[in-house]
């Protein structure tokens, strides 16, 4: 692969440590290899922004695209690892310390309400929902 393809959007001069460059080269080559053998669609930034409810400007879509692509490509190295028979861990070991399911009244209700941007007792006001597909 030509270095142009590997480093598109990422001037080498911006990498902060020459030794890290070497490690990143390895990361990037590995991620390029692994994403080639996967059938996952690359990230569609506009679509993701809609899903995440963030109104991105066109400039932001253009700016974020290559960076997100780079990182997702780097994640691809997880696909190359043999993980058969390994149980996923939700978190490190923890005990199950649920408290009793009895409701309690929170005593700072006024302080909660004071933070609401648009409030008209007893409603939190929001604009209408527009029905779009």
């Amino acid at each position, binding site marked *: 692969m030509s270095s142009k393809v590997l480093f598109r959007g*990422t001037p080498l001069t*911006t*990498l*902060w*440590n020459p*030794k*890290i460059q*070497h*490690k*990143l080269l390895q990361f*990037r080559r590995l991620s390029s290899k692994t994403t080639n053998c*996967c059938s*996952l669609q690359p*990230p569609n*930034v506009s679509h*993701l*922004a809609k*899903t*995440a*409810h*963030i*109104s*991105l*400007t066109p400039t*932001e879509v253009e700016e*974020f695209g290559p*960076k*997100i692509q*780079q*990182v997702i490509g*780097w*994640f691809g*190295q*997880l*696909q190359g*690892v043999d*993980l058969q028979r*390994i149980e*996923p*861990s939700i*978190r*490190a070991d*923890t*005990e199950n*310390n649920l*408290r009793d399911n009895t409701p309690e009244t*929170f005593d*700072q209700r006024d*302080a*909660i309400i*004071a*933070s*609401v*941007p648009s409030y008209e007792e007893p409603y*939190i006001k*929001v*604009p*209408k*929902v*527009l029905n779009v597909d």
Partner: protein
Amino acid sequence: MLSTLQTPRSSLSRFTLPSTITTLASNSQSTLTTTQSPTTSPPQSQILSIRHSLLTRNLSAVDLARSYLTRLRLTEPHLRSFLHIPDDQTIISQANDLDRRIAAGKDVGPLAGVLVAVKDNICTADMPSTGGSRILQNYRPPFDATAVKKLKELGGIVVGKTNMDEFGMGSTTEASAFQVTANPWDVSRVPGGSSGGSAAAVSARQCVVSLGSDTGGSVRQPASFCGVVGLKPTYGRVSRFGLMAYASSLDAIGCFGSSVADTGILLHAIAGHDRFDATSSKQEVPNFLSHFDSASSLESKPLKGLRVGLIRETIEDGVDAGVVSAIRAAASHFEELGCSVNEVSLPSFSLGLPAYYVLALSESSSNLSRYDGIRYGNQVHADELDSLYGDSRAKGLGSEVKMRILMGTYALSAGYYDAYYKRAQQVRTIIRNSFKEALDQYDILISPAAPSVAYKIGEKKNDPLAMYAGDIMTVNVNLAGLPALVLPCGFVDSEPAGLPVGLQMIGAAFDEGELLRVGHIFEQTLENCRFVPPLVADSVE
């Protein structure tokens, strides 16, 4: 003993302090307990010496608070550690109440009179809590985080809220929506992050101790960059209630201090089960300091028999030579103390970094969906609901946060969950097991806390992967949920006074007591290493 290390120059940086600071020095030295020579002696617990001074009436809490506030106000324009500092009067009146209690012979808690800075993603009811984000600018939570509540109950005084990368996403404070904090060792450099403000505040003695949070190294890396002690406890050791969630399976509230002892005292104050955090452990909190040996009573090989494992993958290519040299010197110091030190390899160590980022970004995309401008936070006016969400978040959230949310959204999307999130969870299992195996053979594991010393402000350009690469030393510990202590162990040569290097010590789950005991001995026997930045050297003992 550590002859290969660069000792800091004792001269001040180019930044000269006004004469009021030197007057402060001569006043405070006569009142604060100082029994040792300032340049070469190991750090003493400020919390314990404050307690002694207050109870023997050598010093009032009001005078103590005033002296810290003076230094804080003088250094703050150059450091920008704080996002919010209450009126002096608020702090003085709490100190006054304490003085009255002492005069009346009443009991006072172990943190009596201690000024504590709190990272701004930890909720405080009487001060704004922004998480470093515009979307929460001016937000006042209706409650104190459990950790804050506990430290106040034990007599601590919250001196202010510290600067941080927005919602914990960053390692320099450059991603704060408000300001960039400077490293007290060299104000052209970053303090690290995301708890950069909390680390800088302790380093510059603007406060005694501080609270931070650590999801992938955000307490340990700034501790290393700022030359202070930082502790990330075991996941579940400290309640997360009131900590703005970044990645719920990885987040931990951590402590900063200028000595191992102070860090341990603060941890003891805030640790323990909390019914408001179902992931907080019911395991008993031991009195960490009861196993501390005083320096004078140490035998010649006080750590004889301790098995120390130096993680091989953390001293290979990609780590600054100066950092490797400092860590190797620390390993020699351990050997002098009687330890056996061997290199140990952790399989799959490097996989932890992408696994961590998949998990953290995925969980954060979910956790940050609550910032929608409806029930709290800053709202952008819109005529219909979707735009209100989209525009409020677009305006209120910074670029790094937006990108991370988008990447997390991708990794959790239907069809991608198995390829990314689930696989990352499986890698988490591998990492956990590899640490467990290593900690069967070794009592503690050591490594650098970061591959380099503090970078220049602005040096890390817009290359996310280069930025993430700096977390390689710390993320696996969060994946495994283990405790880790970082303490300054040496310097790298750099104008004006050298830059500190931190040693990371990793222990078994809930073994903070052992980490602190060993760390304390290491610290107290380290010669010729004084970790007070020249900026404030004249005004502290």
